[in-house]
């Protein structure tokens, strides 16, 4: 018995080592949570195109998780060739901590390095029993709001800023009132998951909460995967243009000799095929003319602020999400 177990383990070990030595070119894309389905399609398309152009076959590996946690892993040595994270601040953090990404990375690709954008919408239970129409309703008593933790999740930071932008418009810039308004929303949150996908499963699978605040693409995907019978999407009157950027990690790709393929991979995101795939997976393409019209029709028109209205991530990140920042003040017990 033990011998056969040993033999099986040995065979497994040998096959793994063999697989390790016969490696073709491999790219590692470290991404955030809601891009899983998009990049699965996109990687297949890119690999086919790359090989058709006469290059050796390329295998693309994916790693998904909360954007902040993923950035942390790259800082700690996760060997990403490209990072496709939820917000620029996380890529800035990698650039600052490791120097493997140049500080001016965001100017290196078109559209602020954002080949696709998204926005923040609400997912509610079918028929909208709590009658949730806009951000005001999230601050109402008796409404349970599901949103991830802005400390670890990029999507959650977009959620927070969108709520803040609405508050600013409503209270005409009276910061104390805005902070109180956002605090009331967060007091309605029974759980703060670490990532956007975790929050979605909390709301959808475990049935917690009355409204999920999240990525538009994540909300549509939940509808697509789990059927339209359970949920409705509610678009608030004002939201934020969520810009998830992409960047090459020259410090890693250069060492591995994968820089050419990695660059081509990112460029392909801006190509018509990449844009169409993004739209198909409910991301708003930066070149809508390349996407299928029926995909574009699904995106509701709404007022969008951008992170630039907050002075960019360099200002917004420490102000709202840094240690002792606005979010920490809001979450302080007894407030």
């Amino acid at each position, binding site marked *: 018995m033990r011998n056969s177990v040993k033999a*099986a383990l040995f065979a497994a*070990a040998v*096959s793994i080592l063999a697989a390790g030595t016969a490696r073709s070119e491999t790219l590692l894309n470290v991404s955030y949570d809601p891009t*899983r389905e998009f990049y699965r399609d996109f990687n297949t398309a890119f690999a086919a195109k790359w090989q058709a152009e006469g290059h050796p076959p390329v295998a693309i*590996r994916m*790693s998904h998780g909360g954007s902040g946690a993923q950035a942390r892993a790259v800082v*700690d*040595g996760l060997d990403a060739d490209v990072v496709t994270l939820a917000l620029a601040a996380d890529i800035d953090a990698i650039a600052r*901590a490791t120097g493997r990404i140049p500080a001016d990375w965001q100017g290196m690709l078109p559209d602020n390095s954002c080949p696709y954008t998204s926005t923040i919408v609400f997912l509610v239970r079918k028929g909208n029993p709590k009658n949730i129409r806009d951000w005001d309703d999230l601050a109402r008593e008796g409404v349970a709001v599901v949103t991830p933790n802005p400390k670890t999740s990029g999507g959650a930071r977009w959620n927070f800023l969108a709520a803040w932008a609405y508050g600013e418009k409503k209270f005409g810039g009276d910061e104390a009132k805005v902070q109180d308004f956002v605090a009331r929303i967060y007091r309605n949150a029974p759980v703060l998951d670490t990532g956007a996908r975790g929050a979605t*499963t909390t709301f959808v699978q475990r049935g917690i909460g009355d409204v999920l605040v999240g990525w538009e693409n994540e909300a549509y995907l939940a509808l697509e995967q789990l059927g339209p019978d359970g949920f409705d999407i509610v678009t608030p009157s004002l939201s934020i243009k969520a810009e998830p950027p992409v960047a090459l990690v020259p410090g890693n790709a250069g060492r591995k000799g994968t820089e050419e393929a990695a660059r081509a991979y990112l460029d392909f995101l801006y190509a018509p095929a990449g844009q169409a795939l993004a739209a198909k997976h409910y991301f708003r393409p930066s070149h809508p003319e390349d996407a299928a019209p029926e995909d574009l029709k699904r995106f509701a028109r709404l007022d969008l602020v951008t992170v630039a209205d907050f002075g960019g991530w360099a200002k917004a990140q420490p102000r709202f999400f840094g240690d002792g920042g606005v979010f920490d003040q809001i979450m302080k017990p007894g407030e």
Partner: protein
Amino acid sequence: MRRNVEPVASAAPLDRPAKSGLEARDPARRRWQAPTGERPAVRRLLIAAALAFLGFVLVLPLVLVFVEALKGGVGVYLAALADPDALAAIRLTLLVSAIAVPANLVFGLCAAWAIAKFDFVGKSFLITLIDLPFSVSPVVAGLVFVLIFGSQGALGPWLSDHGIDVVFAVPGIALATIFVTFPFVARELIPLMQEQGTGDEEAAISLGASGLQAFRLVTLPNVRWALLYGVLLCNARAMGEFGAVSVVSGHIRGVTDTMPLHVEILYNEYAFPAAFAVASLLALLALATLLLKSLLEWRHGGGLKPRRGH
């Protein structure tokens, strides 16, 4: 304990003619019970509570795993397991166990040998250290390895200069698994070897055996069943470890995802049948381990004792 009470109770009606003598003693004897026993009602209540709890917390979820896994039919189930990423996860899990279990086997034997057969300064400290992985949260264990071997860590820059990947690669996963499964073999062997003492070895050596011969021909056969038992437990935990491995894995699909991590990924991708298919494979491994363990206890119970529970 039941045997003490029941024969008397059931015998009482038959003895009716000889009332006088028995009646005087009977109530007293009926009320008598072992000092450590409980009344039948209490006993039944305790058993029912334990069973209900086990059923709810252990059996029900386990059954559910298999129900969910087979919901889409056997074809879907097998397809989920034949997926390249699932196969890679299974391979990685087996590989990591194949590294962690032998490492802990050698270490456990050395440590148990040292602790049971010699006296030295710091012995009780060593025993405490061996128990450390039981008390430290696996997440902390994983973070420690990131702090040591990560590229911001103490050894990270040197390692990456030499092209050695530890965290976010197989070595890191193996290290984290070894850390977490560290005590199993040693913990199984130490009490047994301590009780066996050094008499057998002394006899062997006085008859002319070398130290190695004494170990191979006397010590090892004495502990072989406990050793195998420890290895089984160690293996079960190595295959199932989530927390520590999650921290050092980097979650690269098809490369650094072990089976438990892959279950989480599939679940998060709404691929519920596939998630439960892989989970059911893990559950099967656990059940097989349990079966082997029970078999060992049944066949070689004497060779395993004394043993502390886990």
